[in-house]
């Protein structure tokens, strides 16, 4: 499978060229255009019951679609919001990536996805308290709302959870409010994630919560 990401940093989208028998797993609803002859199958992370549990706990159902083709084919996909599309190739063994669930876009069939509950006080941009763990081997495609800033965290970095996209499993994190209850309420900041250790963190320059808060006053009726 070959892939090509175009449109970064603010209109990122990706297209795949599949050889006969190959497949790619994508976020449901993300297909833009494709050649004739592609087949699609629904996939859920962890099975139906886990998906329902996630929905009840306020997260996304994370429906996925697996596109495959008997002959060569191509498919282009995009995230719901314009931003940057990134790719990290996992190389099995201890390699992995942790993602705010809404950031996941696509992956190769050799990647395993599991969800973890981030804890009652965590809330990621538009997707609720779930973290996606990607392991195995192959490419993982994820997207940001807005542009991406990559930081190699050395020591403490405090991040508003809405701006967090993905991070390497070598980092430790702790979720907290911004101090006293009053501060959290009026500061407007959601919750923050305090990272320690070392590893790479992917941050986005915009977040859905902020966009909604900005647009809400203009919504009438």
């Amino acid at each position: 499978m070959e892939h090509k990401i175009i449109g970064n940093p603010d209109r990122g989208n990706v297209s795949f060229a599949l050889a006969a028998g190959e497949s790619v797993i994508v976020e449901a609803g993300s297909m833009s255009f494709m050649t004739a002859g592609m087949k699609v199958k629904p996939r859920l992370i962890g099975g139906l019951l886990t998906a329902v549990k996630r929905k009840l706990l306020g997260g996304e159902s994370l429906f996925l679609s697996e596109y495959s083709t008997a002959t060569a084919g191509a498919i282009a996909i995009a995230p719901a919001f314009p931003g940057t599309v990134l790719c990290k190739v996992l190389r099995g063994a201890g390699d992995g990536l942790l993602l705010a669930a809404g950031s996941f876009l696509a992956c190769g069939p050799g990647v395993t996805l599991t969800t973890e509950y981030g804890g009652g006080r965590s809330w990621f941009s538009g997707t609720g308290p779930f973290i996606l763990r990607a392991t195995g081997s192959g490419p993982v495609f994820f997207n940001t709302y807005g542009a991406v800033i990559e930081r190699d965290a050395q020591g403490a970095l405090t991040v508003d959870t809405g701006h967090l996209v993905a991070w390497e499993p070598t980092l430790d994190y702790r979720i907290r409010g911004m101090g006293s209850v009053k501060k959290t309420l009026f500061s407007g900041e959601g919750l923050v994630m305090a990272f320690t250790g070392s590893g790479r963190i992917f941050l986005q320059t915009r977040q859905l919560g902020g966009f909604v808060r900005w647009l809400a006053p203009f919504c009438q009726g």
Partner: protein
Amino acid sequence: MNHEILAGPSSSILEVTLAAGERIVSEAGAMAWMDGNVKTETTTRGGILAGLKRAVLSGETFFQNTYEADGGFARIAFAPGMSGDVVPWELRGDELLLQRGAYLASTEGIRCESKSEGLKGLFAQGLFVLRATGSGTMFFSGYGAIDTIDLDGGSTYTIDNGYVVAWEPSLSYRITRARKIRSFLFSDQILLSFSGRGRVWINSRSPQSLASWVHPFRRVTSKSSGNDVGGE
């Protein structure tokens, strides 16, 4: 204090580096990430717009946070809510007028207060604009890329009110409308005619347009019980 605007122009984010004891003021909710030890404080500078239903619902209450580097250097990133650019502007004892939603951050020597525009101009977020005075650096943002129009006192220029981000007080404006409207249903465009000598910053997307467009996608209130029918 040093500042850098990263990832411009569509998704610009402001990053400031503070030495120990230095402070920056920002719109509440704009902090994206920070490095180092930082003390924060929330204040309601600029006055609470009480008694206005919209103000309470929309968060027109102008809350600002003050961040101080505590005992060492700190680096803090501030993001506006909407996609678009961030513009730094130096004030040297003079004044700048801004759309209420355009304010992102400022250094301590700058004072921002809400100013009622009354019927003069119906700006994007109701009748209130911000008046920034003092000395220091001001950071403002707008939805979309931000262009500047410099008026030289000769001809006037027309701008849709939803697209005005900031302007120098030397400019004046009045409401104007499309001359021939053969459809009485079309009433949502309010145009401002700017005159005088000075600069106006305009953005390139309208939140009212987006709000109008997204209207059918919003959930409908259930009238009977007042509860939300149908979850996510």
